[in-house]
């Protein structure tokens, strides 16, 4: 069978090109790998390499021809032992069938012209709030502990439970943690499982991801998430996308954790809140707890989770104490919000340190006769918007609060989601209170101005209540 040589495409967008030059003449023997012609477009030059062996029986398109359409037969190869002249004449007739058809993929599935399958269940008409009451088993014994201790206990318990769990990061071992979150872990688990790294975020994040791809469960501590920007390529391109790119083969069970957002008077490069950044990325889960019990229960769930988790802590909250249930079995599910204060007049939704402002405002509003329902998202991605919607369907008003920047922020997302799912329930536009749209200043007075405060939230809540 004579074989047509087709005009190749240089790129998916190329439709035609110039056949610049034949490097073989009719009658020449051709071996696989031989360069037989050169093609040019406005972008590039390409050599046409033979894949099949035989004799160049006929040249169908001459040197220097412009605008040759991709997949047009440009020559004919006669296979070994075939009569070249017969092949040449036969091919002239064989030109008739559109060569493109040969290359057309067989389509069994219709091209997705219609709506793509739904990504996630949409919020039902009457949303149902997540019931967090079972998280604290009734009559459970509680102990007061700081967020710092809760995080440490979560890691220690999971490291006892699973030998594949280890911690790595700067100053996590001998120094006992830059913020003392890993205190005592080196003593209990030894240097193989509690690993001090050099100051080299990009490198050790990549090493952590590589280890996770083999099934180990690294906890990678960033001294602050500001430094994780050095490592963000490994977090997003390697950790978040590999499961999808591998067709489900390569899971990446890793936790990236550390303090995030503003501390106090540390300037613009140490104060950035990355909740919105990571929440933009499919393939990641993003957790940002406020209380010690949520910090412990969610970190334990994060370590057990088979996916890459961004676990955003806050330096100011480390020393804050909360009641935490006793026992090693206590976990909080990722992806569930919590109604921390019921109310009927306005929904205030926040997460992480933003809860400071949300709860403070609710207290102040109560004194003025406005009962705010306060929701702690706890997980930013996947976001439990249903719990928020259920509340908005009751209160018909919402204020969203975060310390991050306003544009493309988490509160922007909350507002949009409410509009999509509960527009008809709203008696006022959703309001947001965020950090100001400026790099964090150092001066005490300016820093205070750059951050949200309880007064801002109270004012926003009153505004949506038209009071």
């Amino acid at each position: 069978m004579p074989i047509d040589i087709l005009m190749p495409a240089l790129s998916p967008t190329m439709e035609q090109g110039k056949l610049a030059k034949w490097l073989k003449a009719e009658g020449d023997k051709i071996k696989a790998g031989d360069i037989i012609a050169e093609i040019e477009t406005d972008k590039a030059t390409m050599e046409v390499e033979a894949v099949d062996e035989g004799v160049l029986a006929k040249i169908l398109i001459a040197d220097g021809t412009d605008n040759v359409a991709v997949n047009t037969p440009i020559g004919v190869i006669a296979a070994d032992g075939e009569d070249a002249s017969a092949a040449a004449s036969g091919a002239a007739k064989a030109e008739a069938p559109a060569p493109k058809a040969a290359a057309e993929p067989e389509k069994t599935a219709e091209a997705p012209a219609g709506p793509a399958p739904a990504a996630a269940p949409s919020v039902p008409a009457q949303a149902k709030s997540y019931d967090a009451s079972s998280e604290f088993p009734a009559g459970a014994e509680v102990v007061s502990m700081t967020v710092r201790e809760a995080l440490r206990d979560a890691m220690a318990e999971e490291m006892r439970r699973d030998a594949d769990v280890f911690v790595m990061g700067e100053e996590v071992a001998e120094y006992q943690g830059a913020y003392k979150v890993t205190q005592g872990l080196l003593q209990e688990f030894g240097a193989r499982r509690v690993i001090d790294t050099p100051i080299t975020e990009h490198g050790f994040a990549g090493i952590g991801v590589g280890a996770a791809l083999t099934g180990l469960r690294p906890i990678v501590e960033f001294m602050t998430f500001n430094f994780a920007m050095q490592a963000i390529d490994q977090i997003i391109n390697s950790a978040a996308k590999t499961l999808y790119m591998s067709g489900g083969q390569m899971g990446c069970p890793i936790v990236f954790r550390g303090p995030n957002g503003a501390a106090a008077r540390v300037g613009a490069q140490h104060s950035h809140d990355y909740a919105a950044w990571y929440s933009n990325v499919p393939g990641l889960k993003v957790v940002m707890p406020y209380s010690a019990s949520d910090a412990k229960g969610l970190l334990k769930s994060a370590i057990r989770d088979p996916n890459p988790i961004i676990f955003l802590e806050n330096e100011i909250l480390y020393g804050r104490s909360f009641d935490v249930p006793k026992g090693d079995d206590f976990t909080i599910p990722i992806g569930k919000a919590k109604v921390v204060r019921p109310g009927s007049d306005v929904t205030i939704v926040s997460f992480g340190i933003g809860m400071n402002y949300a709860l403070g405002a609710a207290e102040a509003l109560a004194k003025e006769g406005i009962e705010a329902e306060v929701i702690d998202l706890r997980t930013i991605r996947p976001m439990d918007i249903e719990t928020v919607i259920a509340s908005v369907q009751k209160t018909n008003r919402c204020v969203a609060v975060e310390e991050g920047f306003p544009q493309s922020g988490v509160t922007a997302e909350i507002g949009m989601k409410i509009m999509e799912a509960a527009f008809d329930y709203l008696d006022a536009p959703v309001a947001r209170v965020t950090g100001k749209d400026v790099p964090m200043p150092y001066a005490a007075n300016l820093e205070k101005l750059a951050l949200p405060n309880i007064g801002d939230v109270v004012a926003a809540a009153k505004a949506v209540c038209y009071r």
Partner: protein
Amino acid sequence: MAIAARKTKAGVPAKAAGKAPARASAKSAPKGSAKAIPNVPTFTKDEELHAYREMLLIRRFEEKAGQMYGMGLIGGFCHLYIGQEAVVIGMQMASKDGDQVITGYRDHGHMLACGMESRGVMAELTGRRGGYSRGKGGSMHMFSREKNFYGGHGIVGAQVSLGAGLGFANWYRQDGRVSMAYFGDGAANQGQVYESFNMAQLWKLPVVFVIENNRYAMGTAVNRASAQTDFSRRGVSFGIPGEQVDGMDVRAVREAASRAIEHARTGKGPYILEMQTYRYRGHSMSDPAKYRSKDEVQRMREEHDPIEQVRGRLTREHKLGEDEFKAIDAKVREIVNDAAEFATHDPEPDVSELYTDILLEPAQA
């Protein structure tokens, strides 16, 4: 000579023709063979045959991929490994089951060398459901947990840290495995490579860093991008041993690989192998072919081709006849044609695949 001159002229921009070609080809003359280790180890006939078959499979597969790209069956980027086959085949001949491989985006050869099926690789190139990533990865993103192939990475240099992480996992588990992290002369200038070198040596991780120096990072010659062009020395400040290897000679590659892998496997830490090799084709499919002379490419093909070297020895020393070569060629061609046929007719992924494999379900505690 007359032929070479004509080709050289054709390969350079019209303006520069006349003086640039001679200089360019002299400067970038491949060092590989010139610096070959004097005592190149010999292969048995079986080893030569194995190397020949494996390298030929990669060559024919890549030629077919190039052809299918030209037919519009393969989209986006497609980086062919033609010319570099001896590197991955020699390395694999020295490795053991369980050792891991990770590389960048010029990855089809590595997958075939790891024993991944031609059908699955080609069907991924055409974006079909039978591809290794079910059509969701493409040329640059394929994996096989079964074959310990960890990708297939599109961010230049990222695979070096990940490869060190594979080595870290071996160290953590003390399971005697070695990770082989491949990257190019271009990636060798990325910062995270040195962060990884540092930690790998600090913790004595079992990883072999394989630098495939094919002399061009896209279109930039090594001497235009690298202050230190002896890549085997890139680990000197960390105390990582390294050597330059004739990456066109599969025997030299296997010999060096055995030393490096043994070093890593016995707890002595990482090892750097600079494989001096050459890519015949463009960086990707669309390549201006203006940064090097055709003469240079042609000379490499004629004088250093890794497959022709083995073929020559099989003919001369092992008296392999034309019929036996034809039989091997036919077998390889059959595998490749079957893969192409499969990849052409396998259906595209079901539309429901759009939303799968984003997250794994947590196990119920």
